């Protein structure tokens, strides 16, 4: 063993490894000088007998020949090739040996193999021994040679025989040792058997005694009890295990439960926060919709204001006389025209009470459709109520009519019919009424008597005094019928000028009314028209025989909403 070879890892600075390694190396050298080495470790199965092995290595072919079977082949490898046998080689040569091949043949084939020749130095005098064995095989001289060799090699042969004897002796010794072991085991077993026999005898005695005491039933009961007891013990063990397991599970569940409670609390908090946010959003969306409405209203106002500004600017530009009277004059009937004259005039040209009443039926569904009129219980005023035909209609519809007329005869007629009627100027009267105090303002065939300023003033006061949702009805001759516009209109000397429907519609819309609708009424009956057989006839019928009157209906909007 080389002393410089590092035997121990230098893993600890407190230990002097140089000195220690030197001492170990010295020890190893001492081991080497002593030729004995431990036998090789071999993995063995229980079925294989322990190998009988030599304690000293084989050093000559003679010694080798004393070995048998597996040991012979293994040792032949070591001696002749200087290495342990490989599995294939071992099996090959074992096969040859077991089929009757001579050992010398196997030695030759190993010794004269390429590897064997290389390792010739391992056995001093090997070649000599081998040549001898080759000569012994030669046919002619073999017998002579054999005699010669046997004489010459008597001592070696003796040694061989001795080795064989030695081998058999060792085998015998080994077997003896084994037999001794077996003997002692037998002896021990025999002793045990004696003891057991004694015990059995004692037991037999006991059993017979117990049998005398009616043991059979007793032992049966006992067995049952033991079984029960075992069963109970098993159950108890199982229950204890279950209990432990359940306790562990319970703890885990408790932990989970706590965790869940915490999560639940957190969730509740989140829910509250969400509800609060939802409420905030709802109130904000209400505010937004209010703001939207307000914006729409404001937009309308702004549009109206723009229109007004335009109109005013136009008026200003068109006004030639800066000293033009700015105050609005009342609807005054010309002083020269007597009340009686006008009543007579009207009944002559406007038509009988029945005719008028039947014509007014057109408006009944419009009134019925408006939800505000009945609900608000405010008065419905008719400016220029005449003989009170409309007041009758209104009363029949359950409203509270009030007639206003400048003509004292008409007012008297209405009063007689049981209506509230006032002889006063309609514009002045309206001006004195509080805001939102009237359900309906109607005026049939009045606005054609008014200047534009008066008409404008009427609309201003109407939109102020009407309740939101309240209704405005204005009826006037329709100049789209050219005969009406050119002729009939001027039959009344107090008419100022015809009002085309488009103008009236525009003005009413401009003043802020909604649902502004034109109703064309009282067309000439068909029998008076040109027969409808051509486009020309159709057009002429429209222009000459179309509706003679029209009405504008409108509603005061719910601006504050």
């Amino acid at each position, binding site marked *: 063993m080389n002393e410089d070879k*590092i*035997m*121990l*890892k230098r*893993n*600890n*600075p*407190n*230990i002097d490894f140089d000195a*220690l390694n030197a*001492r*170990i190396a010295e*020890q*190893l050298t*001492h*081991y080497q000088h*002593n030729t*004995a080495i*431990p*036998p090789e*470790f*071999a*993995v*063995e*199965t*229980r079925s294989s007998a*322990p190998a009988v*092995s030599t304690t000293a290595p084989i050093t000559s072919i003679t010694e080798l020949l004393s070995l048998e079977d597996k040991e012979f082949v293994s040792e032949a490898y070591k001696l002749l090739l200087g290495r342990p046998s490989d599995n294939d080689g071992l099996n090959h040569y074992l096969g040859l040996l077991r089929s009757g091949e001579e050992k010398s043949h196997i030695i030759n084939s190993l010794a004269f193999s390429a590897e064997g020749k290389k390792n010739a130095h391992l056995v001093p005098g090997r070649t000599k021994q081998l040549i001898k064995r080759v000569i012994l095989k030669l046919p002619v001289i073999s017998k002579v040679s054999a005699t010669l060799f046997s004489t010459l090699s008597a001592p070696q042969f003796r040694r061989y025989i001795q080795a064989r004897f030695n081998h058999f002796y060792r085998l015998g010794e080994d077997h003896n040792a084994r037999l001794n072991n077996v003997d002692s085991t037998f002896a021990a077993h025999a002793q045990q058997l004696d003891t057991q026999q004694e015990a059995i005898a004692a037991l037999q005695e006991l059993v017979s005694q117990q049998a005398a005491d009616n043991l059979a039933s007793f032992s049966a009961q006992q067995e049952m009890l033991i079984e029960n007891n075992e069963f109970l013990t098993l159950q108890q063990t199982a229950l204890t*295990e279950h209990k*432990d*397991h359940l*306790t*562990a*599970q319970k*703890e*885990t569940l408790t932990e989970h439960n706590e965790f869940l409670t915490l999560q639940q609390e957190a969730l509740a908090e989140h829910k509250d926060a969400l509800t609060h946010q939802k409420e905030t959003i709802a109130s904000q969306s209400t505010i937004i919709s209010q703001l939207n409405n307000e914006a729409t209203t404001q937009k309308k106002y702004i549009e109206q204001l723009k229109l007004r500004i335009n109109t005013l600017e136009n008026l200003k530009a068109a006004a030639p006389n800066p000293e033009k009277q700015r105050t609005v004059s009342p609807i005054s009937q010309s002083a020269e025209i007597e009340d009686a004259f006008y009543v007579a005039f009207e009944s002559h040209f406007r038509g009988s009470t029945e005719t008028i009443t039947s014509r007014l039926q057109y408006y009944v569904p419009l009134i019925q459709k408006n939800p505000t009129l009945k609900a608000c219980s405010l008065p419905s005023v008719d400016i220029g109520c005449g003989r009170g035909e409309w007041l009758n209609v209104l009363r029949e519809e359950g409203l509270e009519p009030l007639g206003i007329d400048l003509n004292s005869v008409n007012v008297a007629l209405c009063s007689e019919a049981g209506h509230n009627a006032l002889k006063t100027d309609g514009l002045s009267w309206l001006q004195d009424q509080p805001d939102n105090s009237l359900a309906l303002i109607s005026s049939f065939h009045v606005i054609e008597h008014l200047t534009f300023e008066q008409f404008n003033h009427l609309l201003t006061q109407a939109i102020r005094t009407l309740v939101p949702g309240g209704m405005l009805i204005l009826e006037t001759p329709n100049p789209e019928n050219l005969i009406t516009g050119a002729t009939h209109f001027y039959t009344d000397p107090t008419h100022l000028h015809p009002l085309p429907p488009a103008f009236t519609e525009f003005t009413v819309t401009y003043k802020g009314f909604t649902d502004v609708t034109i109703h064309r009424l009282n067309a000439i009956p068909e029998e008076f028209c040109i027969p409808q057989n051509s486009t020309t006839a159709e057009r002429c019928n429209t222009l000459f025989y179309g509706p003679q009157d029209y009405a504008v209906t409108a509603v005061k909007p719910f601006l504050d909403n």
Partner: protein
Amino acid sequence: MKRIKIHQFTPATAVGDGVTTGLFVTQKLLRSIGYESTIYSAHIPPTLTDKIQPIDMLHSKETDLLLVHHSMGHDHDDLITSFQCPMAMIYHNITPARFFAAGTAEHIYSKKGRQQLKQWSDLFIGAIGDSLYNSEELKDAGYSNIITLPMLIDMEKFHEKTVSAPKDWGLNLSRSRLLSVGRIVENKRQHLLLEAMWYLKNHHDDITLPQLVIVGGVTSPEYEYSLKAHILKLGLEDDVLMPGKCSDEELSWLYQNSDCYWCASEHEGFCMPLIESGFFELPVVSFASSNIPSTLGESGLIIEQSDPAILAATTAQLLANNTLKQDLINAGTRNLNNFQSSTLIPKLSAYLSSLNPALTIQ
């Protein structure tokens, strides 16, 4: 303040198993640093259900770091790839497949475990080897941010053990003892110990021959039979005892009443008895293989060649030299420090912070 969650996962747990002990040791360390830490597994024995949670309970999205323990291969690949949190590997080594017969479950899962280790390297932001040897393997498998932290031993367990002398083993109390603990299986190479005993018996007049006690359950009956046959061939019938498995109490007695611990193993992922020897002030002589030098550190005498003659010569030196013996006892005690919480906590804490500064406990 929300606590940082560093949990652990291992596919299977077992009572007394090395990896499971490591899980508990690591949990103790994490909790003492201040982390919230739970152990999850896909297989939990009934007696551990109070300490380990089923893996289904893990909320990986809310986990700041998951430490995944890996040893033998397993079939939970899908689970590993499904976790939605950063992961770090803790590697415990795998006994190589060549130590198992082809076609056995051990052979297959040993191979699979090494394939999995390589395959997953990209999934982990860091890796902890429980020994230098294991850290080297992690490096070869392509892991980054590797640290060696032997989070394996619960020192308190040693204190709990009571001591009682083994009975009916044929112990000769007037002789001193050599101890070796481990399963009876080919890769532990106990036959080399027998041969070393032969040298001590046949070449040493300078020392009184101790008895060799080889403790451990049999996993290879054929090898056990061969060892017993070898004992007969070597003429060591009165000098070697193979009592099989023994109780903790008996083992404690052996550690406390032996003169030297022997290890001839060809492969050890860690080798707990070497640490236990350190704890019980028992000097170690071992062959240098696999992780053994790393586990022993400065302790023990480590022989480079697996030669029983050198083992015998070295042990003879040790038995005859009290100064050397004391040096080895002192080194063994020092080596224990590497496995103490007080050593591991600052290292673990710094490592976790280096993986992700957000894991730092203020």
